[in-house]
């Protein structure tokens, strides 16, 4: 077995440098790599390009990196929950590339799967299609999208084993398995790290081959953005 365990967060982030491109898993604040983001927000790395569906909120998630102006460019699909983000974007401090959510997911997977480009109908006829090749299939125009790669991918899983295998829980899965595939170095943090052999090999979401480093995270806050409930009858 190939052991992917690193003993601490410093080792997990070894090699991280300014001007790199990072992928960061999560949807909203659900399933974000809290430990990795917190540690990155304390490092002196700047000029980062971050690929993440969202940009966190002002004081949590990628918002922490935005506060310190560590991010030069965001590649996201939806960024509507972050006042500091909006300020930096509208002032031109922050470069923003908005892309359709499905294309973000598929382009990440494509990178990991050795598919350099593919056709999708999403975005045809919109700003997103500008400069992109258009081709008709089944009577419908499609645009050519390319794979998205990153120097590091930071993902968060529910359980993981020492071989780097990951299992996610609920909708905290989202982009994590796809970004895990796409990262040149994929750093996985998990709520519970178990010895290889404990997870059912049939039930692993991300095979360890896609993960270069794994560690057990701590103090997960798992903040809820929109607490919605119903009354008991």
């Amino acid at each position, binding site marked *: 077995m190939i052991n992917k365990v690193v003993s601490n967060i410093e080792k997990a982030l070894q090699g991280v440098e300014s001007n790199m491109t990072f992928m960061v898993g999560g*949807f*909203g*604040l*659900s*399933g974000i790599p809290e430990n990795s983001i917190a540690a990155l927000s304390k490092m002196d790395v700047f000029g980062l390009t971050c690929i993440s*569906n969202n940009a966190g909120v002002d004081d949590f998630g990628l918002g922490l990196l935005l506060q310190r102006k560590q991010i030069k460019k965001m590649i*996201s*699909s*939806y*960024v*509507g*929950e972050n006042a500091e983000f*909006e300020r930096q*974007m*509208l002032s031109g401090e922050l470069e*923003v590339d*908005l*892309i*359709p*959510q*499905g*294309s*973000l*997911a*598929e382009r*990440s*997977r494509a990178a990991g799967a050795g598919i350099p480009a593919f056709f*999708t*109908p*999403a*975005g*045809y*006829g*919109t*700003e*997103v299609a500008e400069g992109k090749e258009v081709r008709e299939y089944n009577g419908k125009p499609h645009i050519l999208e390319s794979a998205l790669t990153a120097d590091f991918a930071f993902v968060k899983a*529910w359980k993981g084993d020492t071989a780097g295998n990951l299992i*996610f*829980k*609920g*909708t*905290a*899965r*989202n*982009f*994590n*398995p*796809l970004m895990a595939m796409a990262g040149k170095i994929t750093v996985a943090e998990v709520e519970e790290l178990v010895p290889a052999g404990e997870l059912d090999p049939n039930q692993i*979401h991300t095979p360890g081959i896609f993960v270069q480093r794994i560690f057990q995270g701590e103090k997960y806050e*798992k*903040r*809820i*953005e*929109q*607490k*919605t*409930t*119903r*009354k*008991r009858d």
Partner: protein
Amino acid sequence: MALDKNQIAQRIAQELEHNTYVNLGIGIPTLVANYIPKGIDIEFQSENGVLGMGPFPFEGEEDPDLINAGKQTITTLDGAVLFDSATSFAMIRGQHVQLTVLGAMEVSENGDIANWKIPGKMVKGMGGAMDLVASADNIIVAMMHTNRSGASKILKQCTLPITGVNCVKKVVTNLAVLEVAENGFQLLERAPGVSVEEIKNATDADLIIEGEVPEMKL
């Protein structure tokens, strides 16, 4: 009288077909889930990775690992499935989700929709909307007929950056049900007590009106 948001949702719920998978956008569309007609089996998909969404959880039972695309805490029903974002959009792009209901800032008479950006003012992003409108066979827009300053959102041509072209099939507003027909918007139904004239006045695009326009039944 013009419909309120719940009534718009209620009217859209009449469009739901038995044994179909449906994606509901944020806002009015989310309310559609409250009005599923009896005998109609529907499964709701949320693009962040869940099929078989149930109602909101009881107070104290929220799970941060279980949210919908609007980031609201949810529950799942028997038969639900959880999956990653690529699988989610495989369902959407591959047209396995038959109906998408979403809000809009503008809809044009050829079925274009704009709902993701106001240049220089608001840039939240398209989220999954561009994939959704480019994919589903049936796209219904749920929105108010006019914007806050009273201007029509039903236009000959969109003025805002569009989310998708030639995709909207039907629009349900507080005033009317409109179909995107070959030659433009066809007025199918009026809100109870709202006249054709009132709808015309609130609408920037031309309306195709054939015979008597019936009132919606709610």
